[in-house]
């Protein structure tokens, strides 16, 4: 498959939150790489778009950040989930599952003749 899917509107934040929940405190580059790998390289992600999203999540209080040092001794900013962030993640996950379930049912129904 040559064509990579664009990141759907509103899903990037969920991916970021989930990634951090799974891996613990992580820097921007790490998050970007992880999202790419998890998607099985199916997603085309401009790493640059990650940073405004991170800033937005931080402004909304779901993430906190602090400077640290990476495995290979590079200075980097590490993001971690806050308590409200964890709650938001649960909520968003539930929402998303619901949406996909509904959509799946629709698509399944559409294939069957009436």
């Amino acid at each position: 498959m040559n064509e990579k899917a664009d990141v759907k509107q509103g899903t990037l934040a969920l991916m970021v939150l989930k990634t951090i929940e799974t891996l613990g405190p992580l820097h921007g580059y790490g998050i970007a790489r992880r999202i790419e790998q998890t998607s099985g390289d199916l997603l085309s992600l401009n790493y640059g778009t990650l940073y405004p999203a991170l800033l937005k999540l931080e402004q909304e209080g779901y993430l906190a950040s602090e400077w640290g040092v990476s495995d290979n001794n590079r200075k980097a900013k590490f993001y971690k989930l806050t308590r409200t962030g964890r709650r938001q993640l649960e909520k968003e996950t539930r929402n998303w599952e619901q949406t996909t379930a509904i959509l799946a049912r629709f698509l399944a129904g559409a294939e069957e003749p009436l």
Partner: protein
Amino acid sequence: MKSLRAWLNRFTGIFSNQLREQEFAAELEGHLQLHIDENVRAGMTPAAARRDAILKLGGLEPTRQAYRERGTLPFLETILHDVRYSIRGFRRNPVFTLTIVATLMLGIGATTAVFSVVDRILFRPLPYAHADRLVSLGLVQSLETQEFMLGRFYYDWRGAQKAFGSMTAENAVTGECDLTERNPAQLSCPYVEASFLPTLGISPVLGRNFLPEETRPGGPNVALISYGLWLTHYNLDPGILNKTINIDGSPVRVVGVLPKEFEMPRLQAADVLLPIAVNETEDRTANGGFGSPRRVFARLNPGVSVQQAEAELQPLFQQTLSQIPSDIRHDFHLKVRSLRDRQMQDVSLTAWVLLGAVLTVLLIACANVASLLMARGAMRQRELAVRSALGASRSRLARQALTESVLLSLMGAIAGCALAEGLLRLFIAIAPTSIPYLSKIHLDLRIICFTVILAILSGVLFGLAPALQKPSDAMLSGRTLTSTSHATMRQWLVVAQIAASMVLLTGATLLLRSFRNLEDQNLGMSTDNTLTASITLGEHSYPTPQSKLNFYQQLTTRLRFGPGITLVSVSDTIPPGGGGLGGRFEEIAVAGRPLFTPGTGGVVASRLVSPEYFRALNIPMVQGNGFREEDMTASQRPIVLSKRLASLLFPGQNPLGQRLRFDRLMSTEAWSTVVGVAADVKNSGLTKEEVPEYYRLRRNLPGDWECCGTWGRTSVIVVRSSLPPDQTARWIRMQVATLDPTLPVDIATLHQRVSKLADQPRFQALLIGFFAATGFALAIIGLYGVIAYSVSQRTREIGVRMALGAQRACVYQLVLKEGARLAGWGIAAGIACSLAATLLLRSILFGVQSWDVATLATVAIVLAAASLLASYIPAHRAASINPVEALRAE
């Protein structure tokens, strides 16, 4: 919640911009390093690794841009940027900025101040429930032009009418009463019916209204006191209820306190409200068979208009007329008008004139701002073209222009509010007491909002216009193109400005001339070195005519021996105010002649005077000797006629020795003999023509002091002295205080009293003068701006002309002609508008016609001269253009 938090973060982000960007730069750098490290590990060269990293990021600058936009509020950021840019622009061009701000300040300041005054007068809500349904009604006649009623008719009307929900009355004259307690004071005490407060829709803040039994003769003595009296005398103590206070020596129980904002419908002072306690059946035959005089107010039924009410009252009025003696019947008319009209009477015209004047000034100011902004816009066409070429969108340019206009308007508005506050204080200081509520006026928030919005609108409208035009590429070429549409528009604006200021100047000049005429007119008496003291004796302390007579006799005797005092006279009133008790000409009966036919003559003024009166006021006696000292005790009552009355009564005859009687209906009155004819005196106020007048001697007999309510208890003492007025005033006060320390004395020089009558015209003339000067200045600035701009646009053209041999004089002529053309159109339009506008002023003008050629000509010449002067400055600049430089420029 979360979005609010994010917004807050972004808002504060505006101010920590640099810090965040530095941090992000570090973060981005870290990101790239991590990526490069990994790429290198994967076998790329460092350069390729970096290239790939940046490519994967989506570019460095777009990332920074996206991050920055998320970090702050881009919209606000732009505004801040625009504000900073505008302020830099203002600093670069302080004259332009100051002119606009000053113009707006004048416009907003004057409008706000005047609106605050006028709003109170014309539009304020009256402090009554559904005040729009309250009316004042009654009869009017030549002797009393304010509607009144007589008891008998009032009871008939009240019983039979259907137009009103309720009808109520107060006594026609509000008298003084004395609070005779530990802290004695002379108070104002209106008598009202029990239905008075309910009809007005007022309930006491404490206690209750009068009960029916309290309005019957012999009922309990009760009173309602004003909030002011409650505050000053009883410290707002609620215990005042049912307490007994002493009024005029008798105990009166306080049953209620009036609301703070309460005012009598006729706006007279009211410290204590007392119930009218009469037996209506008896009152019908009191006062010569007509009942006691009243002022009547009523509440219209819903849906009934004043005109309808008047029409419905007509049958009752006709019935009343049939009961009035036939010889004076024709003089009575019915008058029904809204309470607001009753209160505003002649002030409302002043208020409308002021409003008109100030709106004109505001228009001129807005036109000036518009014109200045347009000129600026035209001059910035190149700048706009450059910015547009560099990629600024039209909306971005418009936003910039908008920011600038709003900033200017705001600065003007703030300065304007400060000016308005100052002006308002000035108005209150110089306003005559006859303008109601002035002391209660303050800057109204609504009014400030109104003017500020107006200013912003005018700024925005005209500031935006140039920015909205798509800058054409031609402007980039460096040639300044005259934007002809703007130039024409500005010229029209200037013409309108000149016309408007012409109207203002004409109005102001007329009012000033009218005021001068008032001040300079011959009063028929001399006001120099004359001091007057007005004293009202309380009914309680001076119950009998004899006691009044004694008081004044003692006082005049004491005053006569005062230092420097040459003359002392006592009279019931003094000119130029009208006499207290006038009469109808037709009521004069001359011995040995048939009576006059009813309806002839008009009003006659009368005064009760002492023999020194004529000398004290320097009124010459044209015939006869006037009153003599020995007449003071004589049984015969002599009389002095004014020259006018003498010529009316005895044309071509000698009036001396003739015998007259007044009020021919009362034939019991003794005949009076004419002993003198005095020169005419201004006796109907300053603006009206003098009416015929007669003087009666007030003898030292109790009978001559027996009179008529408050009027009979007030006397004016005129003192002529060689000492300075304040010294004499102190002496008079001292003498009055020795006789009765509680008695208030109102002392003023005669000159002050006369000048007080001219207060209102002075106020009008001053204010309109101020506005006219403001409008004039603004219009001239506007004209100057247009001409100067046009000269700057035509620099090259003028340079070419001069290079081709045009003389300096020609250049002068070229520029001046343009100014003269605009001024000419403006003045022509102004004359037309003035003719229409000054018609409105006709009724407040004295001794000047509203279509006064001299005034119009003067104003036109002044405007023309000022316009030429305003064009001369740019003309001079044009004439000193160096052709070589002008051609080389650009």
